[in-house]
């Protein structure tokens, strides 16, 4: 074996082990398990786990609800953070830009559990917001903010929005300021510049960010479970229940597979509509 070949196999084998043992085989296993029936050891394939999903309204309705929420939060993340990404790359004095960008990263690094817990403290009946409003005399008894769809949405937005900001900032950094100056000199309004120059240039970053945000939100459990109410419906909770409470793993596998299918389908559509490739998402 020549030296080059040896080096090639030295690199290839660990990578293959990673991809085959931890990515490919487990997903095939997920797919196969979803067609088995719990407690029935005969290896006959059955559609029962999927028919239960479509028959029980609680399951498919929760599924639909989760998808709609995830799309809504993704759009919201774009609207909320785009002005911030633009400000940090194009408006603010360069001296402060790296400091402010770093501040964006701190909540990400601190982690979801801690920041979601922070929102429990802020939104509770004796939380920062209610106590402040009472102290200011605006209200005289606490308003219910925690354990509602509102608090759940705040949590989902908070934990995911920075994954939109960072790719958008990367694309905006590569936008030449002179294009904006030229358009402005030729009399274009701010709105026209925004719509015709800035947005088209930032599009790859917006799609990349949108894909990551959507995936994080649709697959999240912490924010809906801690901040959402008892009647609140989130599909990952159904998966957790099947795996960790009722121990019906095959039913859980079917739910998991459905979640994987819908998230892949939405991501695929976003890539198709924008003419991008998955290979570019990570860059």
């Amino acid at each position, binding site marked *: 074996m020549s030296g080059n070949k040896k080096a090639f196999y030295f690199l290839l084998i660990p990578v293959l082990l990673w991809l085959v043992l931890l*990515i490919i085989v487990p997903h095939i296993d997920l797919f196969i398990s979803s067609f088995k029936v719990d407690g029935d050891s005969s290896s006959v394939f059955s559609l029962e786990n999927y028919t239960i999903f479509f028959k029980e309204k609680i399951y498919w309705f929760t599924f639909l609800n989760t998808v709609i929420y995830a799309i809504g939060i993704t759009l919201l993340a774009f609207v909320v953070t785009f002005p911030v990404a633009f400000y940090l790359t*194009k408006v*603010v004095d360069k001296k402060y830009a790296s400091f402010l960008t770093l501040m964006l990263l701190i909540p990400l690094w601190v982690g979801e559990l801690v920041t979601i*817990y922070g929102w429990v403290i802020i939104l509770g009946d004796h939380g920062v917001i209610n106590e402040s409003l009472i102290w200011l005399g605006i209200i005289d008894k606490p308003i219910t903010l925690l354990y509602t769809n509102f608090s759940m949405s705040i949590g989902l937005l*908070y934990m995911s929005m920075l994954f939109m900001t960072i790719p958008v900032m990367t694309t905006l950094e590569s936008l030449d300021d002179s294009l904006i100056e030229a358009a402005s000199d030729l009399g274009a309004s701010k709105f026209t510049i925004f719509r015709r120059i800035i947005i088209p240039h930032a599009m790859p970053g917006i799609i990349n960010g949108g894909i990551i945000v959507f995936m994080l939100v649709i*697959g999240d459990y912490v924010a809906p479970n801690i901040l959402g109410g008892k009647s609140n419906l989130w599909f990952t909770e159904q998966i*957790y229940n099947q795996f960790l409470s009722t121990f019906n793993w095959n039913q859980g596998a079917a739910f998991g597979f459905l*979640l994987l299918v819908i998230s*892949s389908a939405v991501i695929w559509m976003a890539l198709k509509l924008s003419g991008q490739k998955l290979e570019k998402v990570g860059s």
Partner: protein
Amino acid sequence: MIRSLPNSPMYKYGYRFYIVLFFIFLVLPLIAISVLAFNDSNSIALPWHGFSLDWFFAHTDKRVGLFHDTDLLRSIWISLETAFAMAVLSTIVGTMAALLFEQERFKFKGLLYFFAIAPLVIPGVILGISILLSSTYVGDLLDTKFGIDAEVFSPGFWLVVFGQFSFGATYALLLISARLKKFDPQLEEAALSLKATRLQAIRYITIPFLKPAIIGAFAVTFIMSFANFNTTIFLIGSDPTLPVELFSRIKFSSTPVLNAVSFMIVLFITIVATISLFTNRKK
């Protein structure tokens, strides 16, 4: 609109006001946690009862501070061990994958690369359940067919490490690839023409060039592991990591000791961020 163009004061101050609001939204949970970690109270939120270090140091019937809370300290230690093992594995395999995909040509490269970056868009819960399913399957098979009781395949420390590594390697691959793209292949060709083997060239030329990215990848994957909940929860044995311990405390028994541990995490991350800001500025 941008630095070089004039703006109306209305626009300028309106924009700045929005940015200030955004950053308040961003830091509010972190500030709330940090301040309330020092509240002399048995409830996690307001009202403020005065300054106290009880939730760090107390060891009484009513209050057990962070430094006497053995379960919490133990979970921190487990998280550190897990994060270290996961970051080492992810960085090594991520580096190999980067060298493989950037510098080698082989059949099915595109397909393998697709699987390598797929974890970016697969929800963490799916990775968790599919790895749980297949490892349980293999574990059962070994047990019934060969009478081998292999602990690696049942939920516990190593399964958590491998579960997190399945996506950690993807992030390491992307970070290291980005730097490898800037590598001048002539350097390695020079080494090869001087009779170095390919592996020697990698060892003495390419790896030193990649060192900053390798250190960066180690830090990023370490922090990802330390904060991970969605994948970890399915693979955990009897020893919870910090996020899992935090989750069950938030749900069932929250005391301000949670504020104290959260404060320590926020403090640690802020210090790391400040150091990275100054080292980047020096360059």
